[in-house]
């Protein structure tokens, strides 16, 4: 191994190297392809990280959204001419694609670019090294092409070095697999983790440099994890030419860019959102002390353990370092954690709930009924299930007799909750069955009555957590309540409201 080569590649952002990149993609493939949603977004994300951390000057980056095959051919030809004219000691070409493909060709807005042609175009580019990254269905076929070897992912270690003059190919899925998009990640699964890795999550060595091998290993592991409960597993694959021995540094985390570093003091799984908590910026499995590079901005950092979810609001300063440690993380109430932990966290929260309130009369004139309630509640990522019992008593006196009415019943509620900071709001439906028992005091004749009633209604809920395990909520709504009448089933509209206290048991 030439020490000169090694030194050259370990200093990727130094003046003698110039990096060129083409990032292209399209949501629209062939007519028979289901349109993608995030391919163009993936293109933007990869382009951004290459400029910010990958040593690619903005003028040397070409982005193509909604690309066609001719667009790609033309761009690669023109970029080849620029590379050939470059006076830099070394040149690197990075080509990234997000979109549809099959075993033979990329599907580009109704046109096709054969994979062999793409590989030939990249291989023949006048660069010292070339990296081709494909996040597309079925692109794993390319890693089986002549001259390349499909690597076993975890057998690739840093010592497996890329040839300085060679070609490396990363694909998002193995042969026969479909690459997948995620609405939660708002992007391709592979690209999402690749970008997170390039921003620092993949820096296993902690040297503030993310090499191609590190990026691949991280992306492979995270993609596999994310798709582990999807209908199909997705195994990214990696192949490289064997003529050289250097490992390529993809990104430098200490690059001089308009970004800051976020250091994650605790080992574990992190989700990093924008300040609103809506857009997922990065998702990573971090070692203790992992740093990632983010645009200077405020963020919401969510740290997950198998049992709990913690959050911290952080500000990443331009060129600075922000640390997130135990003292910054606040434990989320368990009910909120079940919803905010993420779809892949799948940890519901069970709570005991007791409370009391009032409900309208089952029959006209009987007055407001005080009601005691108790039950169980299960918060999941999508719905909150309420299983409860209630008991109430009311009465009336009309001069002729005194009516005493008891009500006891069970109910099942399905509520969709949304969290706004420490407050949770919800809406849903409740169905239940009650036994109603009426007794009378009269000098005349009035036998007691008992009936079974059914009810179905809409509810709204307002809830606040006073402790990670304790919530106080108000739930109200309106039910249609069906009970036997003299001649036919009687329908009564019954409003109700109750205050309750919930204790999460896990």
């Amino acid at each position, binding site marked *: 191994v030439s020490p000169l080569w090694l030194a050259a590649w370990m200093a990727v952002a130094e003046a003698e190297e110039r990096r060129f990149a083409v990032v292209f993609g399209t949501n629209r493939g062939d007519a028979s392809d289901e349109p993608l949603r995030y391919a163009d977004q993936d293109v933007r994300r990869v382009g951004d990280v290459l400029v910010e951390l990958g040593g690619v000057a903005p003028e040397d980056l070409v982005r193509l959204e909604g690309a066609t095959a001719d667009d790609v051919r033309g761009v690669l030809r023109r970029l080849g001419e620029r590379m050939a004219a470059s006076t830099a000691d070394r040149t690197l070409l990075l080509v990234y694609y997000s979109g549809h493909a099959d075993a033979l060709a990329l599907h580009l807005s109704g046109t096709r670019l054969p994979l062999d042609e793409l590989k030939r175009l990249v291989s023949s580019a006048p660069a010292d090294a070339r990296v081709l990254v494909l996040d597309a269905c079925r692109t794993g076929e390319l890693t089986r092409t002549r001259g390349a070897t499909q690597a076993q992912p975890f057998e690739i270690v840093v010592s497996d070095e890329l040839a300085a003059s060679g070609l490396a190919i990363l694909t998002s899925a193995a042969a026969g697999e479909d690459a997948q998009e995620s609405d939660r990640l708002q992007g391709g699964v592979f690209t999402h983790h690749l970008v997170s890795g390039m921003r620092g999550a993949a820096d296993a060595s902690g040297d503030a440099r993310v090499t191609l091998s590190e990026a691949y290993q991280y992306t492979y592991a995270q993609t596999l994890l994310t798709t582990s409960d999807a209908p199909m597993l997705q195994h990214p694959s990696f192949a490289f030419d064997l003529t050289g021995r250097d490992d390529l540094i993809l990104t430098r985390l200490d690059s001089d860019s308009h970004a800051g570093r976020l250091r994650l003091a605790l080992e574990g799984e992190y989700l990093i959102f924008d300040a609103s908590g809506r857009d997922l910026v990065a998702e990573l499995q971090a070692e203790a002390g992992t740093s990632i590079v983010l645009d200077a901005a405020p963020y919401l950092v969510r740290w997950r353990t198998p049992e709990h979810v913690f959050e911290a609001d952080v500000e990443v300063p331009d060129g600075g370092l922000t640390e997130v440690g135990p003292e910054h993380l606040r434990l989320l109430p368990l009910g909120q954690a079940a919803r905010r932990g993420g779809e892949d966290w799948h940890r519901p929260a069970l709570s005991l709930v007791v409370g009391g309130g009032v409900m309208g009369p089952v029959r006209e004139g*009987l007055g407001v009924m005080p009601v005691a309630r108790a039950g169980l509640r299960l918060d999941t990522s999508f719905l909150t299930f309420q299983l409860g019992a209630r008991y109430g008593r009311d009465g009336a006196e009309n001069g002729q007799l005194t009516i005493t009415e008891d009500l006891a019943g069970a109910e099942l509620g399905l509520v969709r909750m949304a969290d706004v900071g420490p407050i949770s709001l919800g809406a849903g439906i409740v*169905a239940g069955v009650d036994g109603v028992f009426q007794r009378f005091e009269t000098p*005349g004749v009035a036998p007691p009555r008992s009936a079974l009633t059914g009810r179905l209604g809409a509810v709204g809920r307002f809830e606040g957590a006073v402790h990670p395990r304790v919530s106080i909520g108000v739930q109200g709504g309106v039910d249609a309540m069906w009970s036997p009448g003299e001649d036919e089933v009687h329908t009564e509209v019954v409003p109700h409201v109750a205050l309750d206290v919930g204790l999460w048991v896990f």
Partner: protein
Amino acid sequence: MWRSMSACGCSRLGLLLGLAACGDPLVGEQYLGEPMLSFWGTVLVSDGAADTDADADVGVAVVWNPGPGGEQLRPEEKLTTETDFPARYVINLLAPPIPEVMHTLPDGTDNRGSIGLVVVYRDVNGNGRVELADEALLGVAEDIGVIWHEGPEEGAEASPTEPPRGYGVVRRTADQCGGLPPERIQEATEPVDIVMGDICEAVIDPDCNPDTSEWGPICGGGAPPEGPPPPGGPPP
């Protein structure tokens, strides 16, 4: 999923829960209880009865004979009535008479109870109740009355000759003191036609004791006449 549940699923669930409604009919605050006596029929007007305007706000009621020592007829308050004058009526008695109108029945036994008259009145204030001081009686059922038998006290052995506790409709005789005991004719299974005659007087001393009996006009309001009743009981 949410949208489809709210549309089709909820309607089906509502139908299912509606089918779950079963058992006794539930009642509201207006419920007064089950009638202890319910009778209905047609009001017939005989010669001499007060004019009953078909458009008048007319009601039917039961007034209780106060018994020995009593001074005023006592309207029954715990009842419901329906009238579709000038012909049809329904009376539901919902509770026993008040203790103040209980007395020993004039049937030669020690049986206690109350005897009531069915009256037709002009409901001046429209409250559905007869108020004898203010509202004019238009007539009295001339041969029909209501009787309440107190029955034996709880735990006491019932006499074989004593009617069971409860209400009945009785046929009044013209000479009540001679014709008692009244004949119990109805157990709320047949219509009871009321002949509203010109007998706007009623005995208010059911023990037929000449020393204590008093007569009084009950139609048209006003104070009862002074003095003892004529010998031989009420006029035929």
